């Protein structure tokens, strides 16, 4: 990897909300424009924070039993600051006739089955905590909820968005490119025609991205056009870029913000999910972009630009054909070559299939390598919140002070047994300022809804997830 890390040292002090005077350029950023400034007088030295971290496809329950000797190895350096929970059951999220990847992914952090194709069944943990602790809105200028991720499969939002309002709608727009995330956190976006509806402006920008892709195709190597026509389209493309710059370019950025990251080289939007057939990608490409996203997201937290949200590393049921040598801790773990190893192309050649082929009596070598990689990358993000730059006023790190919930979609990859698939779903949480027992692996053997509600109780929330009429069972074993 040849990328320089972005960290808080590169930022000027005072970017955080409390030093409002340090924000030299106004921040007309989405929801915060209407957010209350009631919290401006907030005195707490350590703010309440909650983030959901999702990774796709999951870790089969039998592999979780191996603890840090198996695929969880990359979490070991952070083990004292994490509580790993095994035996969490999301079976109640199963919806007949709907793909379990989707059911399981939507249940992560909500414990509810999805409500149709574009909504979750209820709020996610982070949003419940946000509403309980910041009832009058977030401090002015702060990004109320930050949702981002590196992912490709996208047929339904439950696969990759993991922060939801109480009505099941997404809590914030997904930022899937480093630049978008950067601009969302550190930039001021120019609106079109002074339209106050910034969401609309963002969607229109996304539409323009698709339009740009079309023009790029007609100027590219596979264009059906001859040279003169191609030149005309290239001219059109230049004018769109000019328009894009004028209409949507970041007008300024927060004082001391890091440099604008480079344009993403990965596939995004519809191209990233060609009809569920999967995409080719190298380990280098995947890891580089994810780590840039992780850096930026961590920086947003470190600089107190956000306190709630979700980060996704690969979508539920993700379909990629990964290639590259995977090394960890000085040793070669595996040589990724999904297509070659499956000896199949298209969707059948994707890493996804290793999960469907999981057999606890076999080596599951490729699956193990992929799961190990996921843990390495999740650990990368968590470690960014555990550095010297991440020390809060109480002397502890953000990782220690925040509630960071890590989860996934399934405890097994075999669709033929939903019970097994949605049981034993991997979970891990950070200590949230000493509220939870860290430094251990617990077999909680409980329903996700009970685990989540116990977490909410510990976080001082009155609101609960799941149906009202239900015999709740507190999972006190997780509480400190």
């Amino acid at each position: 990897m040849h990328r320089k890390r972005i960290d808080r040292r590169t930022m000027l002090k005072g970017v955080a909300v409390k030093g409002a005077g340090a924000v030299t350029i106004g921040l007309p950023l989405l929801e915060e424009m209407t957010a209350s400034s009631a919290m401006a007088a907030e005195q707490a030295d350590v703010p309440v924070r909650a983030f959901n971290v999702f990774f796709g496809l999951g870790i089969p329950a039998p592999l979780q039993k191996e603890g840090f000797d198996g695929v969880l190895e990359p979490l070991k350096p952070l083990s004292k600051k994490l509580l790993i929970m095994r035996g969490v059951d999301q079976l109640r999220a199963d919806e007949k006739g709907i793909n379990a990847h989707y059911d399981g992914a939507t249940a992560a952090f909500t414990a509810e089955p999805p409500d149709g194709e574009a909504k979750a069944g209820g709020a996610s943990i982070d949003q419940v905590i946000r509403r309980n602790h910041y009832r009058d809105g977030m401090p002015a200028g702060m990004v109320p909820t930050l949702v981002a991720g590196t992912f490709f499969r996208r047929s339904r939002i439950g696969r990759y968005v993991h922060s939801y309002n109480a009505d099941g709608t997404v809590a914030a727009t997904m930022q899937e490119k480093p630049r978008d995330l950067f601009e969302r956190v550190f930039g001021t976006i120019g609106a079109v025609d002074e339209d106050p509806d910034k969401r609309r402006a963002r969607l229109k920008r996304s539409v323009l991205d698709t339009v740009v892709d079309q023009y790029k195709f007609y100027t590219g190597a596979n264009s059906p056009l001859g040279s003169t026509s191609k030149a005309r389209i290239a001219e059109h493309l230049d004018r769109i870029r000019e328009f894009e710059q004028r209409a949507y370019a970041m007008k300024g950025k927060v004082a001391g913000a890091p440099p604008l990251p480079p344009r993403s080289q990965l596939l995004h939007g519809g191209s990233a999910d060609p009809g569920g057939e999967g995409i080719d990608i190298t380990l280098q490409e995947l890891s580089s972009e994810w780590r840039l996203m992780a850096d930026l997201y961590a920086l947003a937290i470190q600089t107190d630009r956000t306190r709630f949200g979700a980060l996704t590393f690969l979508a539920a049921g993700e379909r990629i054909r990964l290639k590259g040598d995977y090394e960890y801790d000085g040793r070669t773990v595996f040589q990724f070559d999904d297509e070659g190893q499956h000896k199949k192309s298209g969707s059948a050649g994707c890493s996804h299939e290793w999960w469907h082929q999981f057999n606890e009596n076999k080596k599951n070598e490729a699956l193990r390598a992929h799961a190990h990689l996921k843990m390495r990358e999740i650990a990368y993000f968590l470690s960014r919140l555990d550095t010297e730059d991440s020390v809060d006023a109480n002397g502890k790190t953000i990782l220690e002070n925040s509630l960071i919930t890590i989860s996934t979609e399934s405890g097994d990859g075999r669709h033929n047994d939903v019970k097994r698939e949605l049981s034993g779903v991997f979970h891990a949480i950070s200590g949230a300022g000493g509220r939870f027992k860290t430094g251990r692996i617990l077999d909680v053997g409980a329903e996700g809804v009970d685990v989540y509600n116990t977490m909410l109780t510990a976080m001082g929330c009155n609101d609960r997830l799941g149906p009202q009429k239900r015999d709740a069972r507190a999972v006190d074993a997780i509480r400190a």
Partner: protein
Amino acid sequence: MRHLVQFRILLTLASLAFVAPVALAVERVERGLLVRYDFSEDDGQTIADRSNVGKPLNLVIDRSSRVRRSGGALVVESSSSIASTQPATKIIAAVKKSNAISVEAWLKPANRSQSGPARIVSISSNTSNRNLTLGQDKDFYDVRLRATGSDHNGLPSTSSPKRSLQTKLTHVVFTRDAGGKTTVYLDGKRVAGKTVKGNFRNWDDRQRLFLANEATKDRPWLGELHLVALYDRALSDKDVRQNFAAGSRAGRAPPSADNVVKADTLLFDRHVAPLFAKHCLECHDAAIKKGELDLSHKTSAVAGGESGKVVVPGKASQSLLWELVSSDDMPKDRPPLSPEEKDSLRTWIDSGAAWPVEAIDPAVYLNEGHAGEVWLQRLTVSEYIATVRSAVGVDIANEARQILPPDLRADGFNNTAYNLNIDLKHVEAYNKLAEIIVSRMDILEFAGRFSKSRKLSTDDTMRDHVAAMGKWLLRGPLDSNEINKYSGIATTVASAGGDFKEAIGYIVQAMLQSPRFVYRIEYQHGDGTSRLVDDYELASRMSYILWGAPPDEDLLRAAERGELTDRNVVEAQVKRMLKDPRTIERSEEFVSQWLNLGRLANLRPNAKKFPNWNAQLAADMQQETLAYFKEVVWTRNRPLSDLLNTQVTFATPPLARHYGLKPTGNNTDNKIARYDLTKVPSRGGLLTQASVLTIGGDEASMVARGLFVLNDLLRGTINAPPPCVNTVPPPTKTGLTQRGIAESRIADNKCGVCHTRFEPLAFGLEKFDGIGAYHDKDEHGNTLRDDGEVLFPGTAKPVAYQTSNELMDLLATSERVQQSLTWKVTQFALGRPLVAADAATVAKIHQTAQQAGGTYSDLITAIVMSDLVQRARTEATE
């Protein structure tokens, strides 16, 4: 009205400047062709793709010792591998888009025992993964085809009946249409059929094309291959019969002796005739004939001038023409020929000085440079408005005309492709208009036209929804990348908390700004000549030519079914489309642009000289011409040339008074009324209408009016005046009329050479003042005249006329004028100036249209049926 149609047709037939191309004896149906191998190579390891479609997908024989060439066939004698070195991308991409395919082969199996099936034509990667295989299984043919309804090995397959395979030369065709229906034909007859459901979305992009074996080299086929072709559509029964009738050797390159002749013709057409037109004919044509030399006609050029023969075929060094040109003594008082031009001239003389035409028409060579390049066409403002109206039912005319930059005029029209450039304002406008359009649409009703589903999920129905909607909005099927990208908007909207309606709205906004909406995109690669357009390209060409609007459902359906390969169907569609009111609107746009009627709104004649002029009168003049055009062309359905002399007009009361006519109807409502001009010989025809007469400016310039007649009616050519000449027309005065001024210029030794060609053309209009009012005397009391003479380009002697209405009759019955109208309408239809390479086809169009009656409808039909529309120019692929 003068009924001289029959006489005109005879003239037409007699005087066409160019001979139509030699008709092909046998024609194969090749629309939708992707690759064609005719095995005509004498030796070597490469089998050339002779489709002239896109980048050639040539094949390489791995061991040439195992095959031999025999009479234009490739005989595979033992297991061999004949394969493309690259994936068969152009085939795969095209059929994924069309969901239809045809495989055609002329072959002779070596035996009836090979099986496997033995691979004859295959796009595959191994024995169990294939997109397509035409194979032999002992005594029958077997076709495996991958689709979402079959497996990755293309099973279940479609087979010909048992014992249907014979060891004789056989025409084998397999087709699969977009609906899934498959058919096997042997020697033109259907022998089997079934259904392969689904689409080709799951085709593997990386597979190569193989002949006579599998990729793994373990399924060899032995026998003779005479022809193999693949298409991106299902050939119809008729197509298959026609290709069977054409035989196994149809469509091959002509013998080499023909090529030599062709090379000579090309040298003359492309280099020599243009340089004569550009440098020589100004003085050495039939009319001026300086030094008694006329280089515009074959016989006179060969005969030479007062110094004798100027060209000695085969010997440039002994040719006077070469001597004078190479020494720069000629052209006189004009820039010398470039080294390249001189080189062409010398080569032409040295190689025998062939004259493939009887006469050189300089007008043919007027447009080169930009005009000769292959430009894609952006929708003009009016086409954009019509396209939006047709595609989504929204009238965006007011906003579009307000915020889209106007299309600028080039080469006489506003739809000239090379000039339809793009500015930031266009991009801003397309973006804004897309938003306005969507805000006015009933999105759910619109989306419901393509699918009942209202699901956002791209795993469920959104991709199909986008594909169906895109096919309509973008005038043809989308490929999988396009479907991915537009579907991606749905997921983006969903992840921002949006719903189905919002997602469709944004997808439509994206499509409305996409290149396939804003431009008319066609495939432009090839060998630098031309190729048959595909059905969707043809449908768009037809609709924009006839309507200036996109194909309607009927036409698009015909394209989808592959019916536009049938010329009868195309003609029937044109006939249907001609009845649509949009055809009339489009024709009015033609006349409006041709005569540049829009300029009337900007005219500001001298108020003292023309106190009656006002904006309303200018608008009335424009209205007059449009109403007159509609009357002649549509109400009376008369030949286009009748526009020059039909004795009727349409005027508002102020315009009628301006013309000296007694206004009819209510004077106060200013409505336009019809006036019979049978008894008003001074008026009648376009040239007597104020909209055209104002071309002469306040001084009623003979130069400007004459040039209009020369350029726009007679298709004459004239060089620009020398730089030192003051071109401001001198004013009239007592004793000096415009004619007097013109005559003095014509008499001038230097000016006269050119001015004699066009100023007399305007003599018949002298009685009309700068804004078209009729007078017998000018403001100085000079008596005005309307007699004169016309020198038709290409002819030696002028034709005299006594009155302006005689001039109108002369023009209306002139073959040259009729040809010019054909050229103008054809140029407008194609959206580009015509070049020398088009001349033969335009001549054929003209002949066909005149034989049919010479009306606008006849002409448009002939244009659509011509190679200028049925074929697309290509740019040579490197």
